[in-house]
């Protein structure tokens, strides 16, 4: 081949590389634009009133220039951790059953069904929660029914497909030789799962929980429908609660001026909380990986 032809090929290679880079960058730049936009809209008011006013203030009365977000911050955290408390044990148990104990045929049938849960629109979850769960809580446990508990249960179910499918993948990635080695040493199936398989799959399982947590903290519609949305710090799990996302969604339609800016500030705080949770979770999973199999 002539050197001319090689040059041509190199040129087209470079062109493809460049255009792929542009496409990749455009995806990242969307994220950058969103970040800049939120911060640009939300930060000025935070500095004007002081961080303390937003983070520690307990009163959210936008018309009286009182923008305390503490109830919503606590609300978001309560609902998210409530969802994890309900969703993670259920999700782990299902994943362990489907990978280690059920027949391949049953797992092949159940896994897609569970993944289908992820395709149900969140408004449907909210609707079902409102129709069945809320009255159930009101009659059995008291309170208005619209509560932290209701939101946690609904979110716990919504994060199941994420937790289950990622946990299944990471458990399946554990080499069979570990299982064989453990069984050969006289371990039962359950001992093998508990002492070998789960520790080996830990980083993947944590990743699944992080993604589930992200889904729970960001979910808006289903939460609005079942949480009651009172902007007060909930005194118990039966009290109504408003999350950061609900705060934005409920009021953005009619907010203007500083009220509107305060909603963007809510977005800033949500953004930062998610960043912190992600970083912490990522760090702990990276540490585990290093400890478990560092070479």
């Amino acid at each position, binding site marked *: 081949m002539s050197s001319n032809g090689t040059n041509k090929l190199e040129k087209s290679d470079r062109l493809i590389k460049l255009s792929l880079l542009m496409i990749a960058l455009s995806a990242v730049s969307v994220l950058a634009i969103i970040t800049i936009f939120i911060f640009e809209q939300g930060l000025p008011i935070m500095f004007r009133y002081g961080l303390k006013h937003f983070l520690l203030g307990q009163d959210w009365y936008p018309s009286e220039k009182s923008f305390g977000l503490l109830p919503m911050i606590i609300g978001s955290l309560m609902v998210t951790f409530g969802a994890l408390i309900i969703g993670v044990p259920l999700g782990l148990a299902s994943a362990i059953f489907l990978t280690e104990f059920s027949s391949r045929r049953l797992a092949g049938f159940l896994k897609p069904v569970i993944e289908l849960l992820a395709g149900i629109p969140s408004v449907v979850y909210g609707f079902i929660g409102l129709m069945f769960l809320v009255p159930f809580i009101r009659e059995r446990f008291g309170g208005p029914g619209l509560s932290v508990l209701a939101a946690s249960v609904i979110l716990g179910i919504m994060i199941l497909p994420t937790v289950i499918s990622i946990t299944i993948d990471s458990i399946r990635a554990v080499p069979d030789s570990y299982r064989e*080695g453990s069984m050969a040493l006289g*371990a039962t199936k359950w001992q093998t799962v508990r002492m*070998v398989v789960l520790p080996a799959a830990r980083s993947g399982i944590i990743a699944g929980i992080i993604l589930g947590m992200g889904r729970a903290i960001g979910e808006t519609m289903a939460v609005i429908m079942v949480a009651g949305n009172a902007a007060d710090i909930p005194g118990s799990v039966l009290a109504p609660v408003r999350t950061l996302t609900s705060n934005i969604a409920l009021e953005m339609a009619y907010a203007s001026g500083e009220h509107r800016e305060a909603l963007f500030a809510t977005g800033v705080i949500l953004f930062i909380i998610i960043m912190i949770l992600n970083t912490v979770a990522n760090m702990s999973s990276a540490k585990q990986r290093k400890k478990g199999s560092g070479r």
Partner: protein
Amino acid sequence: MKEVAIQVEHLSHYYGQHRSLKDINLQVYRNEILGIIGPAKSGKSTFLSCLNRLNDLIPGSRVEGRIVIDGQDIYGPRVDVVALRRKLGIVFATPVPLPMSIYENVVYGVRLLGKNNRRELDQIVEESLEKAGLWGEVKDRLHTSALKLSGGQQQRLCIARVLALKPHYILLDEPTSGLDPISTMKIEDSLRALKANYTIILVTNNTKQAARVTDRTAFFLMGELIEINETPIIFTRPRDKRTEDYLEGRFG
């Protein structure tokens, strides 16, 4: 007269439709090293997994015939499979330390029995690693990950892990196939030392290894036991033409 420890009678094994072992009859004597040689796919590993019922884990696996170990028919009713697997420890071709520390690997099986006394465990770890010829090399880093050991060390760790369970039998499935000559030599030395207290069955691809360490040798071919005899006899005057051909490298 030597004591018969394992009696295998008319053993056949199937993977689904495929018959992988055909009517095997043999005896294993107490405190001997029995070598099993033969080309790949001749049923050697399957034979080992029948002895401690690890083949139970494979779907479609089926056994006919009888295996009597220490007077017990191991495929009979009411056999405690977990106890059986402890009695017949197995070491695989590829060393698979579990993803935990050296110490935890050794005591893994012991902990499953509910023993948790620190001093007792410490002692078991030292004894087992000593017997496997690994203690000197790892005693200063017992709590580092077992996955950081070299291949030869990992394999000796796997032997130590089996010894920690105080088994009566040690089954080895090509334990040195992935190792360098020096590691191989160390493992062979350990095996000779272990013979005094254990009955050992060594499956090996390496006929020279069988000649070096075993007392008797069985030759398997295509799922059949062709012949079994004292190792020197097998290597110098085998009865069967196929054994001779295999040992001289004409096939396999």
